[in-house]
């Protein structure tokens, strides 16, 4: 049940309605039940996995205070779950284990819906409890809901326990929240169906057939992928936040116009914010604290370890390590040239400096995303090689427009124009659009425009998954 499928909307409508009419004391139990249905519909093994991990971490937390061995062991178990998830997620072979005559597919249990996201939550919870910054949760159902809450289980946002659990008992549904949530769902749908899914075929064409295209076409395909990834993931997040809001919960924002960042460090404060907050709190700060005698070395080591683990979290493979290495290099460079860049910015006109910085950061992010999207290092290197060879197309229609438009007919060119025009307009007016979508007063023009855009330009047929579902 993807967030953009008709079945999900029927499910969502029923859940919101029943949740709204239920009295406060039954709401969390109902949400847990609804989340179980959502996960169980994806597959039963995912449901078994989320319940098992919730019960395990709930019980461990009760005995963890002062027990270092138990704390370390539980961290290892949760970390192994993430590593196994990524290993089996990339594996093409089926692995089975047998109990008497019954065979179980290992993948279905390990590659469970949202496992790598809620495992991070569990690690955060155990750490907070171990260091006595948080009391162990007393209700097992509340804790299970923290892990399995259906609006966020697929791809986050990753929440710290104190950001979610206190809301369970006080979640008040107001008219404003219902309207605000509805606006966000619409915004997410527009981002997914009208922008990301329209760009997907061009990205597929350039990345999956790297031998076929010249430099400019390849470069454009790489730019388009970064834009697609942003709209796909931020669209999902808008929907997750909107659904949660309609159920009375406020989840953490995951994106803050990252493509306008003037430095890579700023980019990481604006992109996948909940993941970076987690890494900052539970990896970066502890490393920096341990090496605090030398500030610069501590910061460099913090960046190195944080992004190395972030790379492994995204997937076990050289491509994700290369992606992480790019960001380690960018951030280290920024750290070491901080003073120089500050001087430079003072010499130049602010807007010129800012524009150039945005351009450089966007290109740097796009470059790292070559590795993020490629299936293998060989594919990534071929794409990079392509950029630097035969840059200008000899025949613009057949070598540039046709591969991006998936065909050279007038209709394909028209569709490509629409697919590129909409995200450009969206990015130019992003601040204004976000402001309107976050309004808690019903905005007729926003609702009508969004729905008409979906009707006129939305991709319905693919029913495609969100990109971050794979992590």
């Amino acid at each position, binding site marked *: 049940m993807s967030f953009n499928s008709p079945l999900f909307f029927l499910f969502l409508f029923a859940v919101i309605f029943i949740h709204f009419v239920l009295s406060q004391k039954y709401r969390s139990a109902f949400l847990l039940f609804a989340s179980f249905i959502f996960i169980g519909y994806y597959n039963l093994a995912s449901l078994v996995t989320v319940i098992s991990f919730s019960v395990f971490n709930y019980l461990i937390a009760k005995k963890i205070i002062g027990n270092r061995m138990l704390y370390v062991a539980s961290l290892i178990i949760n970390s192994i779950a993430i590593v196994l998830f990524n290993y089996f997620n990339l594996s093409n072979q089926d692995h089975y284990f047998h109990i008497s005559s019954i065979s179980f597919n290992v993948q279905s249990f390990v590659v469970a819906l949202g496992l790598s996201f809620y495992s991070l939550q569990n690690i955060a919870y155990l750490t907070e409890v171990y260091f006595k910054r948080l009391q162990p949760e007393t209700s097992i159902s509340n804790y299970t809901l923290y892990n399995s809450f259906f609006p966020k289980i697929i791809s986050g946002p990753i929440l710290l326990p104190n950001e979610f659990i206190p809301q369970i008992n006080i979640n008040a549904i107001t*008219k404003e929240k219902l309207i605000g949530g509805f606006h966000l769902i619409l915004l997410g749908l527009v981002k997914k169906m009208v922008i990301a899914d329209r760009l997907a075929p061009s990205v597929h064409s350039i990345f999956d057939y790297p031998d076929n295209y010249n430099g400019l076409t390849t470069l454009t395909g790489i730019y388009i992928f970064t834009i697609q990834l942003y709209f796909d993931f931020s669209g999902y997040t808008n929907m997750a936040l909107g659904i949660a809001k309609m159920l009375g919960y406020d989840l953490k924002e995951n994106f803050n116009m990252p493509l306008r960042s003037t430095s890579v460090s700023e980019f990481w404060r604006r992109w996948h914010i909940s993941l970076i907050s987690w890494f900052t709190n539970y990896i970066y700060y502890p490393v920096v604290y341990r090496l605090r005698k030398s500030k610069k070395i501590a910061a460099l080591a913090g960046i190195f370890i944080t992004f190395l683990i972030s790379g492994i979290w995204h997937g076990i493979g050289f491509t994700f390590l290369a992606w992480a290495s790019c960001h380690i290099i960018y951030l280290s460079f920024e750290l070491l040239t901080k003073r120089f860049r500050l001087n430079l910015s003072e010499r130049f006109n602010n807007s010129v400096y800012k524009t150039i910085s945005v351009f450089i950061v966007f290109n740097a992010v796009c470059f790292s995303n070559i590795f993020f999207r490629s299936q293998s290092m060989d594919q990534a290197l071929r794409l990079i090689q392509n950029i630097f060879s035969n840059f200008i197309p000899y025949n613009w229609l057949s070598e540039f427009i046709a591969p991006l438009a998936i065909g050279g007919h007038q209709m394909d060119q028209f569709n490509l124009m629409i697919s590129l025009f909409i995200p450009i307009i969206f990015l130019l007016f992003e601040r204004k659009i976000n402001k309107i979508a976050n309004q808690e007063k019903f905005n*007729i023009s926003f609702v009508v425009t969004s729905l*008409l855009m979906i009707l006129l330009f939305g991709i319905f047929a693919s029913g495609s998954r969100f990109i971050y579902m794979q992590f």
Partner: protein
Amino acid sequence: MKSTLFKIIVSLLIIWLSAIGLNQLYDFALAQNCNIKTSYIQKQKIDADILIHGPCEPLWMIYPKVLDSYTGVKSYNLALSHSDFADNYLHLYLYLKNNKPPQYLFLYVTCESMDYKYNTFHTYRFSQYVGDTVINSVLKENDSEYYKWIKIPFMKYAYYSNNINFDVLQGLKHYYTHKTSPLFADGYEPPYQRVWDNHFDNFIQLYPKGYEFQWGLVREKYLRKILELSKSKGIKVILYESPVLQEALNYQPNRSEIVSKIRAIASEYGVNYIQFQNMEMAKHRRYYTSALNTSMEGAQIFTDSLGKYIKMELLNKK
């Protein structure tokens, strides 16, 4: 609360009215677009004596003008690229709604025609005819996901808007410029690829031991439906296969089995299945762009042969 409710009602009303308005606009604009074959054959009387039908092979290979010069009767190329038999069936059905039944229907059938791996059903080509019971039943069977949506205003177009929006704009242009004839008046389209395109070489790399065709039951069902519809209208059907590049036959291990199944269906309905296999052109790649599609030169040779065949064998002219 009252004002919010009012705003929600107003929004719903605007969306509903817009959807109905857009539905009407799309219906109108698509009907005006002469370049859409279904619109053109619904609007203009073609009344051909010989109808050529099938996927891209006949579309890019058979010139009605050349054919007419041999036969002295009118022919029209109804074929559409990448279409399967369900697609062909609906095009024939729509053609017959506004035109007199042709004397002969030449339907392209080859082994690939029976395999789901090749060609497909294009729902969006029929979205303007949603509501017609025949169209609806075929849509329901071939694209059930789409069919679920069609009762919602405008969804019949919104679902595949990427394939329709441009045609709507072109339709409006045709209306305002009073255009009545399509870009390809007799239905024939020159192939977009005119030289050898390496498809066959890639195929060999992928299947070095050849590819075993799978027999698609839905394909068979709609082939039968075309034969039944033709029979009910008194049309003489000729199933034909244009020359396949000879070296490609080595990579089709179960070809004879599939061909005999096609022949069995043909004989069940009392129609001929003609394979133009012994032509000299089949030996040379220069007449082809792929294993099945010919170059312009190859198309010219085949149309000439077909014209002579029709003249001699069917019309008994000298």
